[in-house]
């Protein structure tokens, strides 16, 4: 059971990286929108796991994407930020009861799930585009990119989420 569980996460990691770099990095919807569906890994990752390991995994995921897209370590910086902030976001969305043993993501309401995912995406994209553009003079451009790409990411993540729903966890 335990090995099965790790196996699932490893497969998920590899598949999400490949899907991201081979499909979604080439999308260029409207010329600049490349949705970042790999955030789903951090969204799905089990809650009761060691936090340090989670941040480490987030870094690995980000750096893997960075290697493929020649973006230095921008993806890595964004993923570790949401990996670090995830408990705070979850506490905000689900209240204190997410710390209970019986808490399951699939037992929460649809609105809560979407809010949780949207918050992860917004934080991730804010860090990402701020670092990518690297000047606060272009703050409006950053906001525009965050909104446009964020919406696309959210929609695609929701679609993927309903395709591969996490029933067993």
């Amino acid at each position, binding site marked *: 059971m335990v090995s099965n569980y790790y196996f699932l996460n490893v497969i998920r990691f590899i598949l999400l990286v*490949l899907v991201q*770099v*081979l499909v979604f*990095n080439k999308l*260029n919807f409207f*010329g*600049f*929108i*490349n949705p970042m569906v790999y955030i789903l890994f951090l969204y799905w990752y089990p809650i009761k796991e060691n*936090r*340090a390991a989670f*941040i*480490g995994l987030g*870094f690995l995921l*980000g*750096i893997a994407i*960075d*290697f*493929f*897209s*020649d*973006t*230095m*370590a*921008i993806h*890595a*910086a964004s993923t*570790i*930020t949401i*990996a*670090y902030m995830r408990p705070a976001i979850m506490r905000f969305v689900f209240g204190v009861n997410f710390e209970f043993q019986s808490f399951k993501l699939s037992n929460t309401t649809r609105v809560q799930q979407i809010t949780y995912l949207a918050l992860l995406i917004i934080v991730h994209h804010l860090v990402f585009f701020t*670092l*990518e*553009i*690297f000047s606060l003079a272009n703050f409006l451009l950053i906001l525009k990119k965050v909104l446009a790409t964020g919406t696309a990411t959210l929609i695609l993540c929701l679609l993927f989420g309903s395709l591969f729903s996490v029933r067993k966890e």
Partner: protein
Amino acid sequence: MQQIINFIIRYKNFLLYVFLMIVSLGFTIQSHSYHQSRFFNSSNWITGNILETSNDVSTYFGLDTENQKLMRENQNLRKLLFNKKELDTIVLDSVQLTYTITTGKVIKNSFADPRNYITIDQGSKDSVAPDMGVITSQGILGIVENTSKNFATVQSILNEKSNINAKIKNTDHFGSLVWDTKRYNVVQLIDIPRLVPLTIGDTIVTGGMSSIFPENIPIGTIRKFDLNTSQSFYTIDVALFNDMTNIKNVYIIDNSYREEILKLEKLTETNGQ
């Protein structure tokens, strides 16, 4: 001592986060001021091979148009060759050639970021080295930045760090070609003096001041021009000939005199102090 250890244990997640953040920011900021990192690029073995495999599959869908493009180019070259007046024997001795050309295929292209890099399937094994020019049949593409054994990354002209010598065709007024990161089909030519007569539609080509590109490689046409804030130089919007979103076959240009030129320039600089 006990307290310090307690502190570290208590805040270990935060410290790990800060540490990893510093590492990533370090890589990122270093690349802003200087070249792309030697290690963090898609020309390494794993990413190169995965991208190449994926590209091998997707190439099939564009074979037809790609062939037509190459046929058109051949047609142009044949036209030039047949209409050449003084038909002497053309010596193709490799010792006498200034420029040698390698062909390559694009396996990864990007144009939506402020700093775009293209990965090609030729590397140091095929004698591709950093700072060689890369062009397509229609125009200029970029400069090789890093190479591995089988792959190379190219700094696209759609990169805010890109700076290439360019001039207006049939004149000797040259300036620098840069990109304002706004649109993927428009780049900017700056530092053209105010007294130069310009017309919309004029062709922009590479200048002879660079040791990377040969002179007169097409870049694009003038789309719009304005004086800059100091009112003494033009900022020209150049519409590219290349469709940067659809690139397959590229040519890598090696200038065999480049090292000699660089050595000479360096010598002059040190002597001039």
